[in-house]
């Protein structure tokens, strides 16, 4: 397919010749009622069992009740699976499954020339075409000539196949996603057995539905074989993944898990104060289901109360977090500043989405960076960490908690809609491999002063209930170290600098810059957050071509590693690609007064590897 280096081998079980591929990207697209997310995750689990590396990305319609069959109601699930280490859900699509005309219309643009498009003829009736806005039937007017079009009467075949199960006509039709899944299993030489087992477990209480779905997946598999719709089958061998036990994890799941792990490691109950908002809500959903860990989730009346309740819980000694997305971060800023001033530990998660204002709730962007860094009144330093992949959200959440409690500071954890909803294999760590989190509570009245700092610059965490440490904190400037309210000019300057220095000293934790690829050369690419997969893959390609390119992916954006400037100096040019119009670039330029190139994209979608490679090559050729 997209692989120019394919090799034909003999397929298993005396089947026809199969072509071996390194990696394949499939997109399942249909109406939001067609079960495309389920189909996609089933195929993903099977790919995982086989041992492929993988990355997935769901694409939900932004309107919950968009009329069926319209472009607004199209739901898609993209899966990239490979015999190699992969870091993105794929640029272009090799196979597009379109269950109706609208799904084809929305997704065709991402199918590369020569790609396979599998359609359900029954989703291309006159009404379907009209709802999708097609004047003529694209299956018949030659407009799909560039692709390998495979047509099947999927709905009709499904209804016939599930007849023995005796389900209603409506339910029979709904099994068409499993029929399609069966076809795809055959195409990639995968067995439907695990899915059959899953169906039996999942629908155990509804035997007729279970029977129907099972019949559909088997029928789809057999149909693909006997109807000889596809010229050949394909094999994607297992990937050389690091030894270990894995599971598929989305960024939001990983974030939630990371907080629970942090709570266990810190031996502090977890408190979450949050208000639902796309795409951050799943973190609240996940944690609400983990009450047996002593997790308290508080669904507040708004984001302000979410952040405030978390601050109140931190005051009382809990590991406190608040989770949100862009517009919610705006509402939290005054409370975040209270945490800066009161120097209480708090982790604020911002799952970034397209902005400004309500923007594009279901689409990804990285445009809240400057807000996280600077969006508060006063000189208000706040550590900012960004997760780079879905599974990295786990580690980033733990790290944010560690820094928050060890330095007594609020910390912003930035993720984005892309890694929050995207999924990849997560190598499950052993408990003893998790970072330790040191929590010390003050308890000695003879030495206690509310703002007496330790070696890290942190003030003591003295929780209500501790005899003899009664004291007052608040948003007014406090004198150091007594904690009394103070409007003294020298004291304010001293405290402002102490807060700055404390956050700057987190550099000790951050460590030196990590460079991938060349350590000096023609081009240094500096990225942050969820663009990691695309940027590092693009850099790898250039390195393979012998180009002198280095890659720095920033995990902590405040503070930055202290040798970053020297690293930049070793390259002729610096490129900062990001899903905004130049926020990290502005920050770095401001810090280092150095020229650099920016590459921005604000289309609600992640970078494609190809567009990054192209842009980097242009820079390398111009040699500015």
């Amino acid at each position: 397919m997209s692989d120019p280096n394919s090799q034909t081998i003999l397929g298993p079980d005396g089947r026809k010749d199969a072509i071996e591929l390194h990696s394949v990207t499939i997109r399942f697209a249909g109406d939001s009622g067609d079960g495309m997310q389920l189909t996609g995750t089933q195929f993903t689990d099977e790919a995982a069992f086989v041992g492929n590396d993988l990355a997935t990305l769901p694409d939900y319609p932004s309107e919950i009740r968009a009329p069926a069959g319209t472009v607004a109601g199209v739901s898609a699930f993209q899966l990239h699976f490979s015999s190699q280490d992969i870091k993105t859900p794929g640029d272009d699509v090799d196979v597009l499954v379109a269950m109706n005309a609208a799904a084809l219309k929305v997704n065709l643009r991402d199918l590369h020339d020569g790609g396979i498009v599998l359609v359900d003829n029954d989703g291309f009736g006159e009404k379907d075409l009209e709802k999708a806005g097609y004047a003529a039937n694209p299956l018949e007017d030659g407009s799909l000539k560039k692709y390998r079009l495979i047509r099947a009467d999927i709905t009709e075949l499904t209804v016939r196949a599930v007849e023995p199960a005796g389900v209603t006509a409506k339910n029979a039709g709904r099994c068409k996603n499993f029929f399609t899944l069966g076809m795809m299993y055959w195409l990639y030489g995968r067995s439907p057995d695990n899915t059959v087992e899953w169906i039996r477990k999942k629908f155990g209480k509804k035997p007729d539905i279970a029977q129907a779905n099972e019949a559909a997946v088997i029928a789809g598999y057999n149909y693909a074989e006997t109807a000889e719709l596809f010229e050949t089958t394909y094999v994607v061998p297992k990937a050389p993944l690091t030894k270990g036990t894995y599971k598929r994890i989305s960024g939001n799941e990983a974030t939630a898990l990371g907080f629970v792990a942090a709570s266990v490691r810190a031996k502090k109950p977890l408190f979450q104060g949050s208000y639902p908002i796309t795409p951050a809500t799943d973190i609240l959903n996940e944690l609400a289901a983990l009450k047996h860990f002593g997790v308290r989730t508080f669904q507040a009346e708004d984001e302000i109360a979410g952040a405030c309740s978390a601050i109140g819980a931190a005051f009382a000694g809990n590991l406190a977090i608040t989770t949100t997305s862009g517009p919610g971060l705006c509402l939290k800023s005054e409370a975040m500043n209270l945490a800066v001033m009161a120097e209480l530990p708090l982790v604020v998660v911002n799952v970034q989405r397209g902005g400004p204002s309500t923007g594009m709730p279901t689409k990804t962007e990285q445009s809240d960076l400057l807000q996280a860094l600077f969006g508060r009144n006063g000189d208000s330093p706040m550590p900012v960490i960004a997760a780079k992949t879905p599974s990295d959200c786990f580690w980033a959440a733990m790290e944010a908690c560690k820094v928050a409690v060890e330095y007594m500071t609020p910390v912003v954890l930035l993720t984005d809609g892309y890694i929050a909803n995207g999924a990849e294999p997560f190598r499950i760590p052993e408990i003893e491999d998790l970072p330790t989190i040191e929590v010390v509570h003050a308890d000695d009245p003879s030495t206690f002063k509310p703002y007496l700092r330790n070696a890290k610059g942190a003030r003591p965490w003295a929780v209500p209930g501790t005899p003899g440490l009664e004291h007052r904190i608040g948003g007014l400037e406090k004198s150091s170290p007594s904690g009394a309210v103070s409007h003294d000019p020298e004291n304010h300057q001293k405290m402002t600098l102490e807060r700055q220095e404390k956050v700057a000293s987190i550099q000790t934790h951050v460590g030196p810059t990590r460079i991938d690829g060349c350590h000096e050369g023609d081009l240094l690419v500096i990225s942050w957050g969820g663009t990691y997969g695309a940027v590092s893959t693009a850099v790898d390609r250039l390195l393979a071509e012998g180009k002198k390119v280095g890659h720095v992916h920033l995990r902590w954006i405040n503070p930055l590693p202290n040798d970053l400037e020297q690293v930049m100096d070793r390259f002729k040019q610096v490129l900062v690609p990001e899903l905004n119009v130049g926020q990290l670039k502005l920050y770095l330029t401001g810090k280092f007064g150095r020229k650099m190139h920016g590459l921005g994209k604000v289309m609600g979608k992640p970078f494609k590897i190809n567009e990054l490679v192209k842009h980097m090559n242009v820079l390398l050729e111009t040699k500015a």
Partner: protein
Amino acid sequence: MIESSASPVLTKKDFVSDQQVKWCPGCGDYSILAALQTVLPKLGIPKEKFAIISGIGCSSRFPYYMDTYGFHTIHGRATAIATGTKLANPDLQVWVITGDGDGLSIGGNHMLHVLRRNVDLKIILFNNEIYGLTKGQFSPTSPMGLKTKTSPMGNVDRPLTPVSVALAAGAGFVARSVDNDVKHLTSVMEAAAKFKGSAFIEVLQNCVIFNDGAHNDFYGSLSRKDKVLYLENGKPLTYGANSEKGLVHKGFAIDCVDIDDANRGQVLTHDTSEETGTLAWTLSQFDYPERPVPVGIFRSVERPAFHELVDGQIADARKARGNGDLDRLLKAGVTWTVD
């Protein structure tokens, strides 16, 4: 929940902080501070188990003057912050100090929600019918027509009645008192402290600088007799120097009448746990000069507190699933092994 340990007997002095009190001389806030400093030592709760959380305003400076754990937070949000504190450590007795602007304007939303959730907070709302700290703008409780710096031609906003708001939001304990009636104020605070669940106390407070005399009609001990209706559970709803006036039913409403032999038997009795809440509501709508101003406890009905429900679910979850095991959680779901 709160145990009284064998700690030394506390006195008012134990609750006085080392900070100089900086309210204007004559401000009503002083007596409210003194009242709470009198009440807390009497509760048998160790000093370290009190947390006093305030928003922003003159009144919200309060925590600095109390030698307890205290948190002077941001404008309007004390209730939300206190919710987190109470949930995180139900063993604390958490008091919220707020103003008419802090609690009902910028913090109105949070106020509704803590009360409906029945978060176990003791909330004192200092009602001076003005924004004191910002030097005298009309507030959500200022009467219509009040001339302030931002309403030079008179306030055109219709005021809220804090007690009515609290009742409507479903608060379990709702009371009103007056800053210069210390005996009454301490008794109401004590009742609030002993109540389990949200306890809301409105204190009519005088701001000598920006709204002096706002409550003058019934401020002095003499005028009080005639113009104030003291609510006492189980006692007849009467007022006047010689209790010569009383409340009786009139259709769906309540009327104020001069008591005579004919109507004496119809005088209503105060009931803080009256089932429908109608009595408390109707009384909360009384306003001077048409009617006497009720002070005292309007309503006191306990139901499960928010933290009990939250912790109850945690206990249930642990009973059903055992204490959370991180290793099991990490390995839960569909997994596969690469070797």
